């Protein structure tokens, strides 16, 4: 749980709107981007194979030469404009990116322009196709060593996103874009409101709700939402120990956590209103 929170910090980037609020965008992780690329490639290639059969069978009457020519043209357009077409749309994401819940965005406050989308996709050619072509180059045509050197050189572009903090492709660098997470906004239920009927069973003393800070509250929130029996039990026992809470006869671990969560949040939010934000349990303010 804690690793989820710290990963958010690593991926977080400032995006200040003209209204002066930092939206704190999250960079897309490499796994999501590779996933998106693979999905897009599958879509393109399945589409092209389907188009191939359609054109070949439909085009028999016009002659095989014409059919093949048309297919070559279709192939060219699809391969080159698939990414541009989708990334210029309102979601700024290809179907693969949508499934991975990521999108292209401008690195500055400026808009994501059609030019930027063009630029970032024009470089795709050298980033991915060039290393591939060196890899599959037949040994007889070119000296193996030259092929290897070419692969290394072009590999620099391929692995470029791994070696800079904003995970930019070479195309992103030129175009002034980056790829950020675009999760579907889902409003999770408010944990503090669920257990109004339970509150009477749990009454905490001020010392007991002073035990933790905001960080622990958020970890607790994640634990309750995930609701894995073993974790819930461990965490409940840890908290009972810490605040010296004697477990009641029919007291459920999850109920206890929810009640303590509500109490702790109430306490911390009250202090927040007075301008005190207690970061974690070590924070003495």
């Amino acid at each position: 749980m804690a690793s989820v929170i710290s990963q958010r910090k690593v991926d977080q980037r400032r995006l200040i709107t003209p209204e002066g609020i930092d939206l704190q965008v999250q960079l897309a992780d490499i796994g999501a981007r590779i996933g998106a690329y693979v999905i897009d490639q599958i879509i393109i290639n399945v589409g092209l194979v389907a188009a191939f059969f359609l054109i070949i069978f439909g085009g028999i009457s016009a002659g095989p030469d014409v059919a093949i020519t048309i297919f070559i043209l279709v192939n060219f357009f699809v391969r080159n404009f698939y990414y541009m077409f989708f990334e210029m749309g309102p979601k700024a994401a290809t179907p693969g990116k949508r499934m991975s819940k990521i999108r292209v965005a401008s690195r500055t406050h400026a808009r994501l322009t059609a030019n930027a989308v063009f630029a970032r996709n024009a470089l795709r050619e050298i980033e991915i196709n060039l290393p591939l072509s060196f890899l599959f180059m037949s040994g007889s045509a070119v000296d193996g060593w030259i092929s290897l050197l070419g692969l290394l050189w072009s590999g620099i572009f391929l692995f470029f996103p791994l070696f800079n903090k904003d995970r930019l492709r070479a195309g992103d660098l030129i175009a002034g874009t980056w790829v950020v997470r675009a999760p579907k906004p889902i409003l999770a239920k408010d944990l503090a409101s669920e257990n109004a009927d339970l509150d009477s069973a749990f009454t905490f003393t001020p010392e007991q709700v002073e035990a933790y800070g905001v960080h622990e509250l958020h970890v607790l929130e994640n634990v309750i939402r995930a609701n894995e029996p073993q974790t819930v039990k461990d965490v409940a026992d840890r908290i009972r120990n810490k605040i010296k809470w004697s477990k009641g006869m029919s007291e459920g671990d999850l109920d206890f956590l929810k009640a303590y969560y509500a109490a702790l949040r109430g306490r911390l939010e009250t202090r927040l209103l007075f301008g005190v934000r207690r970061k974690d349990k070590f924070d003495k303010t």
Partner: protein
Amino acid sequence: MAGQITLKSHRFRTEREASWRELEVILKAIEGRGMKSLSDAQIVALPRLYRSTLSSLSVARATSLDQGVILYLESLTARAYYILYGSQVSLGKRISTFFLRDWPLAAKALWKETAISAALTLLAAVLAFILVKNNPDWFYTFMPDSMAAGRTPAASAETLRETLYHDEGADGLGIFASYLFSHNSKVAMFAFALGFAFCIPTAILLLYNGFILGSFIAIFSEKSLGFEVGGWLIIHGATEIFAIILAGAAGMHIGKAVAFPGELTRTESASKAGGAASLLMAGVVIMLFFAGLLEGFGRQLITNDFIRYAIGLSTLTIWVLYFYGPRRKEADT
């Protein structure tokens, strides 16, 4: 005791939730079916809802410790931000500004790089021409076998002449299609894409392209077909070679910005240069298409040398005027 009264953050959430949901519905409609699908009331409501959600986010960050709400508001406002401050120019308008202003202005702005890349091509072509003239063996050094296709110094004058006026019965569309994957459009793409590495690969590519051009002309002029090969080349070459030179210029522009960023950081400098360069590159793709049409149809149908020269030179004039001719100043749109 703390839990018995409802939390302030919870009350805040219940009060504002309806307007967040309203914004969510509008965003979904825009992303799915575009701005046009909104009703008038929704269009009026959109900016108000966006601002109030943004203010909800500020309030939530300052007073609420409910992560669910904050994460929700962050992703909701980010989505709204990308739509409201996203590109709002219609595609048609975008295309017309590109042809009327963006493309020629980008070409004009990069005139220095264009001059350098033209000079490199010319230098290499002249050098190769002289070398091959003096010793035809050089031809084999410059020209890959696959491209020469029998047009070598060993070929007779008749064979060479034949290649200038007949293309083995291939149909125009076929040539056009194969052209898209041909050597030259690859050269243009790579000249742009590799410029990123401090201009050096771009310069090498331009030189190499010049060598091929020069040695090619040399073997024809050896068989006193110099004038004829000129016509064969210029009808589409005026557009194609110009396009390659511009692609090289775009690549160098980026390479220069990466190598010498000046006051900016290297990243900022590269993306600043990338704007003009990619505009120019979009234009290059269009030029290559045009060159493909000229090669596929124009060159097959027109076998008169003078008409070939006339078409080639007039396209060249049109390009030069289009890029570098004087134009009215307009306010930025």
